[in-house]
């Protein structure tokens, strides 16, 4: 494939899919700058692999690369490292009510990725399983755990559910 053709196709793809990929990355890593860096790293890998990736699977491939970039980044961080990407809040008076961002921060990275892929990107369980390289049952159980955690820290959402 000629270089100018590759760049033209890649530029079009980047313009269409880049912002959505950055949003997915943001939900996983919870920092816009980091999400942008990891999206760019993923897109650089996509550029390098461009001729080998079928046009029909490029979006899925890009999402997989970007999510793996995010998870790889997070798993290299040790838990005792101070997390300066998380948004801070002034001291709360009990009872503590978290907003969605804070509640998401409580989820392990892979559960956040599953939440992002299923509920932000609207991907089916099978596709999330394929993308993360895990069993469909694992996606379902991890989704259930993530929702339990979110419900546990977002009482206003429980109220919303109860009043529906």
């Amino acid at each position, binding site marked *: 494939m000629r270089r100018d053709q590759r760049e033209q196709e890649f530029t079009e793809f980047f313009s269409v899919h880049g912002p959505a990929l950055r949003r997915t990355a943001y939900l996983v890593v919870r920092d816009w700058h980091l999400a942008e860096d990891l999206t760019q*790293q993923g897109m650089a890998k996509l550029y390098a692999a461009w001729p080998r990736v079928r046009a029909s699977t490029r979006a899925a491939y890009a999402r997989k690369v970007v999510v793996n970039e995010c998870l790889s980044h997070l*798993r290299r961080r040790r838990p005792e490292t101070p997390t300066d990407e998380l948004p801070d809040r*002034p001291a709360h008076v009990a009872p503590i009510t978290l907003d969605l961002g804070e509640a998401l921060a409580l989820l392990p990275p892979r559960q956040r990725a599953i939440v992002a892929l299923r509920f932000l990107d609207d991907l089916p369980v099978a596709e999330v399983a394929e993308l993360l390289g895990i069993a469909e049952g694992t996606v379902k159980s991890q989704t259930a755990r993530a929702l339990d955690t979110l419900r546990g820290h977002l009482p206003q959402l429980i109220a919303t559910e109860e009043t529906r």
Partner: protein
Amino acid sequence: MTAEDLSTLLREHVARDEPGHFPDPGAAIRAGRRRLRGRRLAAGVAAATVVATAGFAAAQALPGSQSGGPTTAVDPATRRALEDYDPQQMPRLLDEHASAVFSRTVPDLPAGVFRASDGQGNELPPKWYDKASGMSISYGADTDHQLSVDLSHARSEAEGSARRYCEEGLSGGYYLSCEVTTEPDGSLAITKVMALRPLHGPGWMAVPRDRIDRIDPDRLWFQREAKVIHSETFLTYVRETVHAPDLATAQAEFKVPVVDLLDLGTDPVLVIPEPPTEPGGCGPWTMPRSHVTYSCD
């Protein structure tokens, strides 16, 4: 909460502070070109290595001429320590070296707690110490005065510009001070002070400078850290963390001088070799219990 509720909430959450500008693809294209060039170069080097190795193997008839040395790019003193490396000795070595330095200014040092971890931060039993991505020793973890030494192979934490790391942390208000120095052994050291508050689980959350006054003083901690970067993957963190209501009090509570933090951070004996990579993956080895697999592409 229904799936629709959560989808709506997530979209609102993301849209609330999403940067309006998305960068043009130029940077990704340039980085992609670099990857392609690197791949071609690596293929060329691999081909040359095959030729050279074949020549070497043909010529080598001398016994005992295997190098067998570590592949980690580190200074000579560290390399010597790696040649004698015994992972089972690391709990003792870490404790001896760390307590010798910390005891200079903290005479009533509590007993140290050793921890080895894999590439995902899972604690490892001794049988896996030889594959550890990180080893640490901590003192006073349940007290208001905590000390720790943390050896780690983490490329993402070692790479990048140290000065930019400081500048961004300072401009973002996350670092109260930050300084970059080059140590006598050639390693790069970043010494910084941060305000922290504990998370509900393990770990800390950084408190930006302009929010310190808004945090319950009883939940405020301050940490002085020397981060010493030895190679493209290996680094040492030496930390002193104190429970204090403000920076001035914390400065008085810090007992270990920066020179001692750096002394430990550059101790050539306190080193671990680069961990093996996961089969079929590009990440460091993780304990065989995870169902997650990662790929480089």
